[in-house]
């Protein structure tokens, strides 16, 4: 087995010395799994901890497992060699950033000693503790961590199936969908309408649709000034609503119109070919560009593993993020039921660390530590105007509670709003460094 090169000197080499000292008395057995490294697996593998999903939750969990237990055998399963983040993809849609600037690779995780396998996870058998992979091989686990993100509920809105998404993109998973929607926006005729449909709760990234509307409006104001943005919403309230609406008035004038559930905003049918939607009370809206953000559920591997409940999301133990339905499977990120924590990349990263600590504790026969999480969601209304919601979450009486938090002040001045844009950029650099170890 190839010896891993751990990047951090200092602390980690002290840990290594310590492990050698502990030697036979160690409660953390130094089993090396027999594994072939490099290239697609052509024979079955095993690992003490298998992580499925290399996004904010999974990549963070894999990194922190290795940081805190450098000799632990950790394998990460992720089909993409390059991960595009949904956070800041709205800036790509507005022409403010490139796709490359929101891309992250797995080189530094590999340097840390995580075995990264670029294939899909197709099935999980918790009895044999095996994950079946898309390349035809299987991998056995002692502990499994799933961070599968979301999958779209196809046909939850009549007419919105996978084929429809090629004409009316959701762009709610970043990558090709982002590129597709960006091309459509660039090709819009001046004077057209960008229609965005927003779903009922719960869904990935509660402020996301409204930031998207804001930044598309910004792009239109510069390049297609007679164009408008229409948001058709399946609900009456949304994240940071007061701040968004004030911000829209302040910088976008009447370019953005929002129609809530009570105003006949709920979309019940999509005709992607015609770029038309029909709302609950029979109104037809025709779009130049139609962006459907549809109802969602946990990524499919969660269903296969048996960790989802009837809601389609994953209930977890709030202290450890272990599945309440299947032992030794931990789940983090958007797929989980972790309210009041939102479904955000920030929260997924925080949950990944808590689950990593809980897994190490479990492997050592220790009680888990008391967890805590933070979340901060920045939204840009235009390149000079940013808003945020931030909170800290703790366990109280066995449940996750918000122990502090709030949104940006409603009466903040222009300097404050610009500062939050700058901090959003700083946040993005920090969280992506913390998750994948790359700088942007």
């Amino acid at each position, binding site marked *: 087995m190839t010896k891993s090169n751990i990047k951090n000197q*200092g*602390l980690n080499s*002290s*840990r290594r010395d*310590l*492990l050698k000292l*502990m030697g036979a*008395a*160690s*409660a*953390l057995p130094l089993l090396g799994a027999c594994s072939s490294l490099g290239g697609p697996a052509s024979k079955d593998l095993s690992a003490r901890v298998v992580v499925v999903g290399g996004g904010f939750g999974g990549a963070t969990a894999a990194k*922190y497992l290795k940081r*805190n*237990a450098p000799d632990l055998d950790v394998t990460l399963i992720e089909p993409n060699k390059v991960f595009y983040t949904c956070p800041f993809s709205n800036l790509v849609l507005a022409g403010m950033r490139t796709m490359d600037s929101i891309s992250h690779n797995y080189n530094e995780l590999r340097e840390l000693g995580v075995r990264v396998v670029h294939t899909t996870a197709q099935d999980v058998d918790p009895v044999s503790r095996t994950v079946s992979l898309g390349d035809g091989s299987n991998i056995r686990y002692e502990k499994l961590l799933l961070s599968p993100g979301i999958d779209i509920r196809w046909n939850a809105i009549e007419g919105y199936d996978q084929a429809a998404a090629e004409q009316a993109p959701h762009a709610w998973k970043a990558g090709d969908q982002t590129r597709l929607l960006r091309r459509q926006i660039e090709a819009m005729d001046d004077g057209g309408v960008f229609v965005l449909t927003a779903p009922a709760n719960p869904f990935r990234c509660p402020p996301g649709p409204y930031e998207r509307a804001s930044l598309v409006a910004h792009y239109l104001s510069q390049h297609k000034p007679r164009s408008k943005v229409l948001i058709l919403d399946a609900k009456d309230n949304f994240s940071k609503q007061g701040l968004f609406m004030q911000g829209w008035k302040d910088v976008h004038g009447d370019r953005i119109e929002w129609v809530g559930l009570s105003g006949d905003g709920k979309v019940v049918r999509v005709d992607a070919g015609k770029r038309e939607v029909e709302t609950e009370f029979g109104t037809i809206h025709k779009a130049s560009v139609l962006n459907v953000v549809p109802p969602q559920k946990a990524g499919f591997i969660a269903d296969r593993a048996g960790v989802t409940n009837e809601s389609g999301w994953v209930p977890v133990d709030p202290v450890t993020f272990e599945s309440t339905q299947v032992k030794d499977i931990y789940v983090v990120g958007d797929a989980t039921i972790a309210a009041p924590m939102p479904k955000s990349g*920030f929260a997924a*990263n*925080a949950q990944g*660390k*808590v689950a990593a*600590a809980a897994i*190490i*504790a479990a492997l*050592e*026969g*220790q009680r888990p*530590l*008391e*967890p*805590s*999480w*933070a979340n*901060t969601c920045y939204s840009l209304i235009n390149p000079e105007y940013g808003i*945020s919601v*931030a*909170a*800290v*979450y*703790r366990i109280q009486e066995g449940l996750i509670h918000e*122990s*502090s*938090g*709030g949104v*940006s*002040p409603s009466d903040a001045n222009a300097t*404050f709003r610009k*500062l*939050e844009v*700058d*901090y959003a*950029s*700083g*946040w993005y*650099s*920090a*969280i992506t*460094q*913390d998750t994948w*170890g790359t*700088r942007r």
Partner: protein
Amino acid sequence: MKTRFALTFALLLPALPALADDQANAAQTALLAASCANCHGTDGKLAGVIPAIANRPATALENQLMEFKHSDSTRATVMPRIAKGYSDDELKALAQYFSRIGSAQQR
């Protein structure tokens, strides 16, 4: 160095009967500190528009965190909302933790 070993030891959570309470506390603080990385980088080392917090003097960090939590200063944006989520003792422990991490890495 002794403190660093203690912290390392605690982070590994070995099942040795002589493990002192403050090593368990150190592990608890490390977990509490984990969310700070989301804006300040892993180990609080990332320097940029959001400042690095690693290796700054403990008293400076503690004073800053207390100001975020207890004063009504509007100079800060997000930190007052975050600092209020922790007890004063936890903030002091976090200040100690980050002051010991090592030198910050510049962009």
